[in-house]
């Protein structure tokens, strides 16, 4: 792309390493080591509390999982959730960010309002949503009002389809503001004149958005879509909470919940580590795919 003197290039590459080294050292200790440890543990039959040395069983944990209906159900639940939450999050947060910047007044208020769910403690959010989903709660009241179906129980927490929808709803609520805020920062980084040009005319606002704003926003779109995807694949607390509140487990038994139950509740740490590694590989693959398909690093003005 650019011509440079090799001496400068060498110097720059050294500075590049210098800048990333502190973070690398940190990650080695607090992330890489635990991950390597989990990968190692996945090759053993190991009970968490046992003082006996664990038995090496090679890939048997993986073989067991790939034959287990329960684990395949978890993969299904994880993907159902990710598909249901990821796309709406991405599209709606971008839409809201653009709309917020297009209104004259109340930008700050709108941002804060959308971000507000993230301000709530998760424990408290849980209490609130559970009372909304209670058969006598707001969920039924409002839906019955909208659909004009008085007295119907929509079984927010009980029906296997509805319970998946409910987890998605809560998740969406919690994270929408998070991504709106990121998009706004990304939009703010776009050269002002282009950006204004893109929004000036009501008639072809849509076109100019796609032609001018969107390409410039690409790094942010990649950021949000990768983050949203990884977070959805890793979702845990929402499902955990639903099950604690009496929902059936199978429809929302996502991989992380299965990892938790297998490792912490049933003490089979070898098997749960193997699940973690499989989830790790799934996430790695999809991240790679996203970078590949979006050609994320190309930015042109």
């Amino acid at each position, binding site marked *: 792309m650019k011509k440079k003197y090799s001496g400068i*290039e060498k110097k720059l*590459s*050294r500075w*590049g*390493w*210098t*800048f*990333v080294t*502190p*973070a690398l050292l*940190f*990650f080695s200790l*607090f992330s890489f080591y*635990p991950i390597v440890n989990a990968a190692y543990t996945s090759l053993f039959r190991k009970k968490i509390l046992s003082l006996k040395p664990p038995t090496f069983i090679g890939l048997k944990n993986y073989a067991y999982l790939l034959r287990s209906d329960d684990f395949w159900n978890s993969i299904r639940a994880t993907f159902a959730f990710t598909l249901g939450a990821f796309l709406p999050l991405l599209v709606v947060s971008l839409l*809201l960010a653009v*709309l917020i910047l*297009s209104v*004259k007044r109340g930008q*700050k208020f*709108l*941002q*804060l*309002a*959308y971000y507000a*769910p993230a*301000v*709530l403690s*998760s*424990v*408290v959010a849980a209490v*609130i949503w559970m*009372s*909304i989903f209670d058969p*006598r709660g*707001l969920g039924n009241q409002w839906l019955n009002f909208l659909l004009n179906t008085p007295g119907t129980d929509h079984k927010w927490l009980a029906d296997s389809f509805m319970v998946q929808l409910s987890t998605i709803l809560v998740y969406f609520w919690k994270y929408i*503001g998070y991504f709106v*805020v990121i998009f*706004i920062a*990304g*939009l*703010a980084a*776009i*050269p*002002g004149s*282009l*950006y*204004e040009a893109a929004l*000036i005319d009501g008639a072809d606002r849509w076109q100019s958005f796609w032609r001018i704003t969107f390409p410039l926003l690409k*790094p*942010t779109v*990649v*950021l949000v879509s*990768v983050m949203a995807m990884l977070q959805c694949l890793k979702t*845990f607390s929402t499902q955990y909470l639903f099950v604690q509140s009496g929902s059936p487990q199978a429809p929302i038994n996502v991989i992380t919940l299965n*990892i938790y139950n297998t*490792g912490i509740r049933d003490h089979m*740490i070898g098997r749960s580590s193997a699940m*973690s590694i499989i989830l*790790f590989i799934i996430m790695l693959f999809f*991240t790679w795919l996203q970078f590949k398909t979006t050609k994320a690093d190309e930015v042109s003005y």
Partner: protein
Amino acid sequence: MIKQKFSPLNVLAGLILLGALVFTLVPILFMFSASMMPAKDILRMPFRWIPRGFHWQNFAKAVAGNDGSFIFIRNIANSLFVSSVVTVTTVMLSSLTGYGLAKFRFRGRNFVFLAIMATMMIPFEAIMIPLYLVATKLHLQNSYAGLIVPFLVNAFGVFMMRQYLLPFPEEFLDATRIDGASEPGIFWHIVLPNCAPAIATLSILTFRSQWDNLLWPLLVAQSEKMKTLPLYIVKFAAEKYTDEGAMMAVAVLGSIPMLVLFFSMSQYFVSGASVFSSRKG
């Protein structure tokens, strides 16, 4: 910024914004209104949105605690301290690393980036035990270091700063180099000041995730004095002693610092844009 016209498109935009507003704010209103009610009224169905009066005892109990020890004040101070320190270190290290990854070419760069990204791909539940092992070996339990050190920087921050800096005009950096500026100098005087919107955003997001961090502090903060706000809230939620009113009051008090931070930071989102654009636009 733009001329507001009364067109169907604008009406639609307004409706979308309004709909999203209702969706996000209803649960928040629930929290505020419930924090002013005795627990008995919160359980009443259908929920009464307007409290019949201000049940101030909730707030008194929230601050005094179940045992009247006022440890709440210490706990919220801990949360403020830990979240602030983590936010500062995350912003610094993330921008440094993100800058290194976005604007320097070196062998292994993509591998380093991927390795850092990979740390986001393993659920916390899976590495909890080895992480605890590291913490105990470093004697981090029950100390501020234990609450802070494992979160000095995170992959999301690095990722975000890298993405943000990718479009940063390279010619501009080169020009500064030719003027004889040192690399750390360029980072400190040129790159950082130009990242205001991203830094403001990252600060808010990092602060939030520390403010709500539950699992790790549960593991390392053992004495009451070391505990943070989420642990305090969980206490109110303990199965046999739930007092929903007081719990909502804690939540209201606990969300104030976040709101203040948001207000003081959000101006950078939009106004920060100009620096970046004047150079390129």
